[in-house]
C-alpha cells in the first residue's frame, strides 16, 4: 500500500518540479473560456446561459491536453519498464497514475471553475451545481483519458489519435455534466444528472485501470 502512495507522491512531485503540466491545463482552461465572451459578445444574459456548457467543453479539452504526458515521459526514459516490473499488480500502478492525473490536471479545474463561472455570469445557485458536477465527472475524464493514453503509447502522432479515440467517450460525461447545470435552471432538478455522473465515474475508476494495465503491457512488447 505504501508503494501505491509513493507512486502518487512521485507523480505529484514531478509535476510540481516541472510546473508546466499543472499550469498548462489550468492556463488553457482559463484562456479557452475567456475566448467565449470575445466571440459571443459581452451580453451578460447570453453568457450566463452558455456558461455551464462552455466550462465543461473547456474542461474536456484541458484534460485532453495533459493526457500525452501521463505515460509518455515514463515510456521514453524507461521508467515504465521499471514500473511494470514492480512486484505490484500493474493495475495498481495504473490506478495510482490515474489518481495522480486527476489531482494534477482535474482538481485545479474543479477549484477554478466557480470563479470563472461567476465571471461568466452564471447564476449563483448554479455555480455550486457546476462545481459538484465537475467534482463527480472529472474522475471519469482521468480514468478514460489514461486508458486512451496507454492505448496510443508509442504510436506516431498519438495526440491526434488520442483525441479521436477519447473525445467520443467523453460525450456522456459532457451531456450529463452540462445537463446538471441546465436542469437546475429549468427546475427539473440536477440530482438525477449528478447521480449518473457519479455512477459513470465509479465505473470508469473501477474498470479503467485494469484495462489501462493491459494496454501498457501491450506497449511493452
Amino acid at each position, binding site marked *: 500500500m505504501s*508503494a501505491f502512495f*509513493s*507512486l502518487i507522491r*512521485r507523480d505529484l*512531485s*514531478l509535476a510540481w*518540479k*516541472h510546473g508546466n503540466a499543472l499550469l498548462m491545463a489550468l492556463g488553457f482552461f482559463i484562456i479557452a473560456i475567456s475566448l467565449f465572451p470575445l466571440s459571443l459578445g459581452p451580453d451578460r444574459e447570453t453568457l450566463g446561459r452558455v456558461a455551464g456548457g462552455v466550462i465543461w467543453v473547456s474542461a474536456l479539452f484541458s484534460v485532453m491536453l495533459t493526457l500525452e504526458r501521463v505515460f509518455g515521459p515514463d515510456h*521514453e*526514459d*524507461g*521508467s515504465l*519498464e*521499471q514500473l*511494470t*516490473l*514492480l*512486484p*505490484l*499488480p500493474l493495475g495498481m500502478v495504473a490506478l495510482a497514475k490515474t489518481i495522480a492525473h486527476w489531482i494534477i490536471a482535474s482538481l485545479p479545474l474543479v477549484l477554478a471553475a466557480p470563479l470563472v463561472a461567476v465571471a461568466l455570469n452564471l447564476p449563483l445557485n448554479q455555480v455550486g451545481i457546476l462545481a459538484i458536477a465537475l467534482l463527480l465527472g472529472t474522475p471519469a475524464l482521468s480514468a478514460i483519458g489514461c486508458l486512451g493514453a496507454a492505448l496510443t503509447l508509442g504510436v506516431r502522432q498519438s495526440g491526434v489519435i488520442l483525441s479521436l479515440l477519447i473525445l467520443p467517450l467523453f460525450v456522456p460525461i459532457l451531456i450529463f455534466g452540462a445537463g446538471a447545470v441546465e436542469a437546475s435552471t429549468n427546475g427539473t432538478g440536477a440530482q438525477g444528472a449528478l447521480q449518473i455522473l457519479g455512477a459513470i465515474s465509479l465505473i470508469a475508476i473501477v474498470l479503467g485501470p485494469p484495462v489501462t494495465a493491459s494496454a501498457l503491457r501491450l506497449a*511493452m*512488447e
Partner: protein
Amino acid sequence: MSALQGYKVQSLACRRGGRMLFTGVSFALDAGDALLISGRNGVGKTSLLRILSGLVRPEDGQLFIGNTSADDDPEAYRAPIAYLGHRNALKPALSVRDNIQFWAGLRGGMRTEDAMIAMNITHLADTPVRLLSSGQKRRSALARLYACGAQLWLLDEPSTGLDAASRKRLDAMIARHREEGGIVIAVAHGDLIMPDAKDLRLEDNAL
C-alpha cells in the same frame, strides 16, 4: 539480502514480428552464479532478458525461481528481480539521490548511500540528473540497481558509456553481489569481467 536458490529456465522460445528468434534456451543458476549471454546483433539477447524479467511473455517455455513459476505467480516471480535495460529510467528533474531513493523505497532496498559510494557518485547526489553526462547517468542507474537489493540482476550491456575506472567499479559491484549470494545475468560484448561466469551463446535461428 538472502541468497536466491535455484533460478531455472526451461526451453524458452521467443517470436518477434512473426520470426522465431530462438528456441530451446534452458539453463539453471544458483546463488553466486553469473551467466554471460553473447551472440550476434539482433539474435535476441535483449528479448531474452526482457522475457527473463517478466516484461514479455515467452512464446514457449517456463521460468522458475525456486518453486515459483512466472506463469502462476508473476508478482512473486518479479519480486527478487532487478532489470537494467538500455534506458536508465532516471527522471531529469530529480536529483540522483531522489531518483535512487524512489525505486529503492518501492523495492524495500535500504542502501542508497552504499550504492552511491559503490558507483562513486556521492559527490553528485544532489545534482539534478539532467545535468549529468551519459556515463554519470549510467552509473546512477547502476547504483539504483544495487540500492534496490534485488537478488537476481538482469543487465543489458551495463557498461555502455562507462570509462575504465567505472567499469572496474561495476565489476567489483557485481563480484560483491555474487558474494552476497546474488545471481547476475548479463548481455555484454567482452567489456564485463565476471570470473567463472557460465556462457550462453545465442545462435542465429534464421539461417
